[in-house]
């Protein structure tokens, strides 16, 4: 093992809270110097948020409004010329969500940075035409979905993302953000989310005890998590990281799904269950607060706590669109 090569890799792989480093920039190990910026002084004796946890026990930041300075982060990422890939699956009837997803992404997602939208679809001809801002592009990846049930399609995503990580993503982008399509952006989602591996707190469970998390509880499943384990309940609809880390995650989840299939068991929340298992044992280097993925339907069931929730959730950035669940049973 060539230690200096290994150590160069150590530096250049994104690490906890290290927003500076991306995988592709191996050439030139110089630290990029920020230009003069004016902003209020951070106050050591004044927490940014007093109502929520903003750092995990393994020192990964939890991204809440008020914890970060967008200008500083944008400057750090611009200097690195990072490119962000956004994967979305627009399969069968889910195509109807794509236009609003992309239009809202143009307004709110990584504005000012280089973005590639990877649209996985079985109907490339139906992908809507959109005016895309400079520095951003749409790449359509035609895939065959041999499944009929939405749960299977959901799980198939893991396989497809991992395949394309190898085939092209590692050469085209530095980071991958993997999102559900039945959503729209309603507020800034920027480089503050980027790190080597991130998950998002499910809006329905962030206030609960781990024993109430809907982890897969059957020991026969690869996604099994016992009642005394678990940090958070992550939502399957938004995760990401550097290409190598997303590759590892999706590959591991895909294989776990295959093992389950061979054992005639399906995890209770499908790919989301496997994602949770993976992130328990491979802790993310950033965690996105529920601001990043909001489901009003879910919140409607929690009347007592709505007041608390609305104070805590200052901004709702990605909203799940109300849909007729009949859609899922075509």
């Amino acid at each position, binding site marked *: 093992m060539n230690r200096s*090569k290994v*150590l160069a890799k150590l530096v250049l792989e994104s690490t906890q809270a290290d927003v500076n480093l991306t995988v592709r920039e191996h050439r030139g190990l110089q630290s990029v110097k920020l230009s003069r910026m004016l902003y209020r002084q951070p106050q050591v004796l004044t927490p940014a948020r007093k109502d929520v946890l903003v750092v995990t026990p393994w020192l990964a*930041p939890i991204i809440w409004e008020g914890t970060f300075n967008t200008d500083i982060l944008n400057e750090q990422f611009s200097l690195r010329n990072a490119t962000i890939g956004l994967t979305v699956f627009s399969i069968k009837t889910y195509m109807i969500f794509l236009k609003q997803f992309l239009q809202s992404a143009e307004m709110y997602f990584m504005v000012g940075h280089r973005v590639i939208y990877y649209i996985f679809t079985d109907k490339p001809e139906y992908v809507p035409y959109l005016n895309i801002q400079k520095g951003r592009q749409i790449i359509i990846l035609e895939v065959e979905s041999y499944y009929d049930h939405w749960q299977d399609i959901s799980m198939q995503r893991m396989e497809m993302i991992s395949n394309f990580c190898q085939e092209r993503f590692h050469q085209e982008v530095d980071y991958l953000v993997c999102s559900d399509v039945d959503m729209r952006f309603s507020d800034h989602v920027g480089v503050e989310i980027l790190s*080597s591996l991130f998950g998002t707190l499910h809006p329905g469970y962030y206030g609960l005890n781990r024993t109430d998390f809907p982890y897969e509880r059957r020991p026969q499943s690869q996604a099994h998590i016992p009642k005394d384990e678990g940090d958070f309940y992550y939502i399957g609809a938004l995760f990401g990281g550097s290409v190598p880390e997303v590759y590892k995650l999706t590959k591991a989840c895909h294989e776990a799904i295959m093992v389950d299939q061979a054992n005639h068991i399906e995890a209770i929340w499908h790919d989301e269950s496997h994602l949770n298992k993976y992130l328990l044992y491979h802790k993310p280097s950033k965690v996105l607060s529920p601001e990043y993925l909001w489901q009003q339907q879910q919140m409607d069931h929690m009347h007592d706590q709505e007041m608390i929730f609305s104070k805590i959730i200052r901004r709702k950035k990605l909203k799940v669109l109300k849909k007729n669940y009949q859609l899922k049973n075509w």
Partner: protein
Amino acid sequence: MAGMRRAPAGKTKCCSLHTVTFLLVTLFLVLSGTGFRILGNSMLGSRQAGVGKRGELDGLQAVEPSRMVYGQPKVLTPCRNDVLVLTPWLAPVVWEGTFNTDVLNEQFRLWNATIGLTVFAIRKYMVFLELFLQTAEKYFMVGHRVTYYVFTDRPADVPHVPLREGRRVEVLKVPGALSWQEVSMHRMQMISNFSQQRFLHEVDYLVCMDVDMKFCDHVGVEILSPRFGTLHPGFYGAAREAFTYERRPQSQAYIPRDEGDFYYAGGFFGGSVVEVLQLTTACHQAMVVDQANGLEAVWHDESHLNRYLLDHKPTKVLSPEYLWDRQKLGWPPVMKKLRFVAVPKGHLDIRGS
């Protein structure tokens, strides 16, 4: 595969499926020439993302993180409500209560990280070395591999201190200097030189510390990240205008009154070897320029460190728990632990030689 571990309860791993898949992926990647990077990173379930993924490139070991039981992190309960625990650029500020040592130790153990600690024991400062090393043995990176790099002009006087397993002392002979300021300034140059010559090949992280100190409490892997600085204990509550930055525009270390995040202490900084090499090289070069212009920054290498960390923001910031002076500052309630403290000078004989 070597080092594969099984978690006890309720979790089985399909080793052979992973092995076969891995070999096929490896073959594909090698044949398609996509390179070492992806190959190294195709380790299945092998690493916790976060600090350092060097281990993946170690070869075919797929070490599984094991099951751990600990209190659940509570999203609606901040760990500290009295201090800032995250900088505006999302670097953790490391205070007691913010981290779980067991979880972090597990992450770093899996990577088999080696930590280098540089300390300068030049001329009369040799008198501090024994206590420094003895207390480091008790509190510094216990359970991990450590190399103490002792820079000294008098190698024969380096005390023998019994060391735990996996730890060693390397004595590096350097010329003596006239004043503590000179020593302070030369540190940057020496660390930079030795980083290139040796440290890159021997350790993963470098921690650069003052010697006239002792450890009184845990200083562990929670501090490690590509680039870290420590909040100076005298200024953590001060407004930036009061920071003792270099204020003369002619100096390379100059910081205007309307800029500055924190005032970092020169006595405790570090990071990955590559990052420390860049930092110390840049600071040394800045000092050379100042010298050529007939200038010396007001707080010497500390001034240059502050300029550097303003332009290249640290990926972790250590709270003043990590560098304290009990005599001068007492023990305020915001400090839950005092980990690394100044040795009262009166207690040791430091007659000039």
